[in-house]
């Protein structure tokens, strides 16, 4: 039932309350976080779900906890809060840059990390590639407990998640890494990126790349890693020009999505430049 008395929005006050409300409503209800994606459903000619359980007032979902081995980010932490909370952690630069530059300030004040991950039709989400490159996991709460899975796995299954569950928090492991998120919007101000590249790498004592994770966002419908390019970065010093040349060679790995703001071929064409900038950004971090 969409709410016993026909109400379309139930504002939950605790996680247990939200799970109970979702269980009661079954398939007729969806989770609502910052609402910036859902409120635009009519513009996308999508029906709005029958009713919503809002989770953005739940205190525990609004916390960022920086622990020794991991960072726990509640699903309803906004982009602005995230950029602020992690600004002092160079190892999380990719996430801070993604959160601090996406959309525009008023959207960043409202849009949440959980919403960004769950909006499966939103190809240009900035946080998604940044979280992939940082090897993040997330926790899904369900009535009988919780489960933890990688962000990459979550992206594969997110459209089929059973009703009654919700993303509770995102977990970013802590390692001594350098990272950056490079985005190309058509206008500098307030646009979605045509393409984005998130890169994280750990370096040995002599500056040789020991491990690299590179994710590409907004080019294909869902952000994903670029394994061949990652392999090409490992075992040598950070070299922006060489990385761009490799990206150029490997670009055929992607098939760009056509959209109003850019054709698919263009999204792929700009990747080597974004890769070069990402490697340069890592080089400049000490």
């Amino acid at each position, binding site marked *: 039932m969409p709410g016993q008395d026909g109400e*379309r*929005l139930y504002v939950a006050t605790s996680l247990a309350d939200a799970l109970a409300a979702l269980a009661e409503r079954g398939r007729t209800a969806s989770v609502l976080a910052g609402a910036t994606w859902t409120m635009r459903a009519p513009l996308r000619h999508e029906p709005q779900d029958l009713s919503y359980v*809002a989770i953005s007032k739940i205190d525990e979902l609004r916390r960022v906890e920086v622990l020794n081995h991991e960072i726990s980010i509640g699903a309803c932490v906004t982009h602005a809060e995230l950029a602020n909370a992690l600004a002092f952690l160079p190892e999380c630069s990719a996430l801070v840059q993604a959160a601090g530059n996406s959309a*525009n300030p*008023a*959207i960043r*004040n*409202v849009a949440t990390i959980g919403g960004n991950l769950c909006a499966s039709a939103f190809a240009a989400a900035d946080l998604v590639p940044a979280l992939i490159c940082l090897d993040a996991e997330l926790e899904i709460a369900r009535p009988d407990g919780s489960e933890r899975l990688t962000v990459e796995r979550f992206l594969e299954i997110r459209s089929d998640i059973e009703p009654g569950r919700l993303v509770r928090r995102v977990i970013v492991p802590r390692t001594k890494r350098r990272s950056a998120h490079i985005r190309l919007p058509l206008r500098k101000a*307030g646009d979605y990126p045509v393409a984005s590249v998130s890169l994280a790498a750990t370096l040995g004592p002599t500056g040789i790349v020991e491990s690299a994770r590179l994710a590409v966002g907004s080019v294909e419908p869902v952000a994903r890693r670029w394994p061949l390019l990652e392999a090409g970065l490992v075992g040598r010093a950070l070299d922006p020009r060489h990385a761009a040349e490799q990206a150029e060679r490997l670009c055929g790995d992607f098939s760009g999505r056509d959209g109003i703001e850019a054709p698919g071929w263009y999204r792929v064409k700009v990747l080597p430049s974004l890769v070069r900038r990402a490697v340069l950004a890592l080089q400049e971090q000490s």
Partner: protein
Amino acid sequence: MSLRLNVNGEDRFSAAEPLTPLVDVLRDEFHLTGAKIVCREGFCGACTVLLDGRSVMSCLVPVGLAADSEVRTVESLATDGVLSPLQLAMEQHDAVQCGMCFPGMLMSLTSFLERMPNPSRDDIKAALAGNICRCTGYERIVDAALSVVRAA
């Protein structure tokens, strides 16, 4: 069910359906027509208001999520008919043309300057990234905002 909102310091009640965009309640029910509706998409910023002190696009906030919160609209800036320093600066710099974007510009800048009292020109531009103006070319708006910072 009635929702309580504190709008510009005054308690107001709305019986609107909770998924109604806040901007529609402000304009149609409370007759506060300062916030403008242009894109309804979060891109233009003409509907910017402050929700518990933070700038938000009121076209994308369901009124049910604004319940029991403080909303500030452009109507709150002038007190007893006296313009705020920012409004005055806009007038003095002859920054306003058609005015459609201005309620949003003013609210974005008001919350930004409360948080960052000593910004650079680039900081101000970044703060206005979500406020589109089709008329002015922005430079005089930024000049006006900077003049307020320098005068403070």
